[in-house]
């Protein structure tokens, strides 16, 4: 099995299938950040928020610009496609805690300010208070980037 097939499943938006292949490729990869960026989105999409936050936090600690500088076209980032459905569901969901965390992570690929807004909304009730506080601290210290 291979990273290449994992990349292919990511392009085809088959997130569940992509996860196992990308995770397997991660330890030996010369470009782990590229894989982690994809894994964050995959884990959010399959509802595994804790796993998504783990990789998200790693990347933010290394350099938030790895995510912030994402180009939707040249990086084939699906966040513009998937964020609207997450936001639509936000109104209908009674327990939307995961949604704030998910949107906070997804938005960083295209809009840092919105990302911070959602992560701040998540902060009061999240199970991952320490991680999210750490992420917010780094993001608030990061120089704004023009998209």
């Amino acid at each position, binding site marked *: 099995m*291979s*990273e*290449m*097939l994992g*990349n292919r*499943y990511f*392009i*085809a938006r088959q997130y569940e299938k992509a996860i196992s292949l990308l995770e397997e490729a991660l330890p030996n990869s010369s470009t782990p950040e590229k894989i982690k960026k994809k894994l964050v989105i995959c884990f959010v999409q399959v509802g595994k928020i804790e796993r998504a936050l783990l990789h998200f936090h790693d990347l933010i600690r290394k350099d938030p610009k790895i995510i912030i500088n994402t180009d939707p076209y040249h990086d*084939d980032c699906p966040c513009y496609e998937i964020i609207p459905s997450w936001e639509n569901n936000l109104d209908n969901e009674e327990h939307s805690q995961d949604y704030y965390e998910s949107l906070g992570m997804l938005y960083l690929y295209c809009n840092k300010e919105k990302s911070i807004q959602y992560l701040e909304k998540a902060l009061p009730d999240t199970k991952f208070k320490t991680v999210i506080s750490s992420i917010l601290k780094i993001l608030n210290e990061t120089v704004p980037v023009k998209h």
Partner: protein
Amino acid sequence: MKLLDKNLTKVILDSLGEGLFTVDKDFRVNSMNRAAEEILGLHKSEVIGDFCKNIFKTKRCFAECPLEGVLEKGENIYDIESEFCHQSGKKIPVRLNAAVLKNEDKQPIGGVISFRDMSYLEKIQKNLIGSTNFYGVIGQHKSMIDIYSLIEEVAESDSSVLIVGESGTGKEMIANAIQEISKRKSEPYIKINCSVFPPTILASELFGHVKGAFTDAVKDRIGRFELADKGTIFLDEIAEMPLQMQVQLLRVLQEGTFERVGESITRKVDVRVLAATNKNIQKEMEEGRFREDLFYRLNVIPINIPPLRKHRSDIPHLVQHFINKYSLISSKEINEIDDEAMDLLASYSWPGNIRELENAIEYAFARTKDTIIHASKLPPNIRMHMDYSDRYTQEETTSTKVDEYRRLRQVLEKHHWNRSKAAAELNMGRTTLWRKMKALDLDK
């Protein structure tokens, strides 16, 4: 001038007639040859570094990426049909091959796709259809004209059609014509040959399956009936369908409902069914291999296509059509057939019908070097059918002579008219063979 290795590779790739591009493990294009640039109307500087799906924009890029298939199965893919998008937005039909590139550790690091532009075949088909008698069908015999009238009369109908005719009579061409003038002509038109698939696979092909329904069902798959929703499905060789599946088909015809293999959800479709068979369907019913209720559901509009021997007057039209077709395909300037060859074709019994006639013309094209097809260039079985009776009077045509003529001709053709080799196989001297050939007027 000595070329560097890298330049040499580029020169080789650019000299290919086939388009070729490679991608890295992220599916970004990292090389493209000149033919690919020409076929797609792009310059490599515009595409290098971009994702292949953004450039080629085919349906396969999303659902059935050939490289994904190679990665999953570990086997290269050859000669599959696809469609690329020219820079102008025009769709280009292609046939492509796909292979994965691996590093020393056998890890995939990229892929290579080579492809041929098949647009010329579409152009040929369009030109040829324009010169046919009825939406791609050739024939001016009354039996054919009656079929055209029937198809036109039922053009507005959604009723099932059962097309019956011997093998090679053009059942699929008739089905295509029905589709072409029907009110569903802009909707999907799906074809399936029921004899090609084993029973278990046929169910999945027709109705689809869900992941885990059987050993190889690694993901959900939509069936042909769902693909044909709102359109038409052509079920060729319907008499080969297993009885169990005939029950399922009957239900689709009656209620428009079915279930995917391995699933209990009932799905509904709106599909017009065209079916065809070369079997004697009455006999199939009598012997319990075909359900009577299905027959009556399918046979709402019956069409019987006559064998070619029953409409011989169409042979010259068909011959001219196939000459036009193969002169376009082969780029040979052959535009005529001599009288002797036409007589041979007109009097032959054509057990394989129009398909056999087309094959005969294709064979003659391969052997013809000038602009006219001569009798000597027709397939041996057709020539032998006439050769002897042409050359000998009734008194002379003893069965021995006929047999000897045929045997000598077969062996000589086998050895490309090398008399020494033929004589050796016939266990006779070269001179004896020559004498016999002269006596029988046997010549290349």
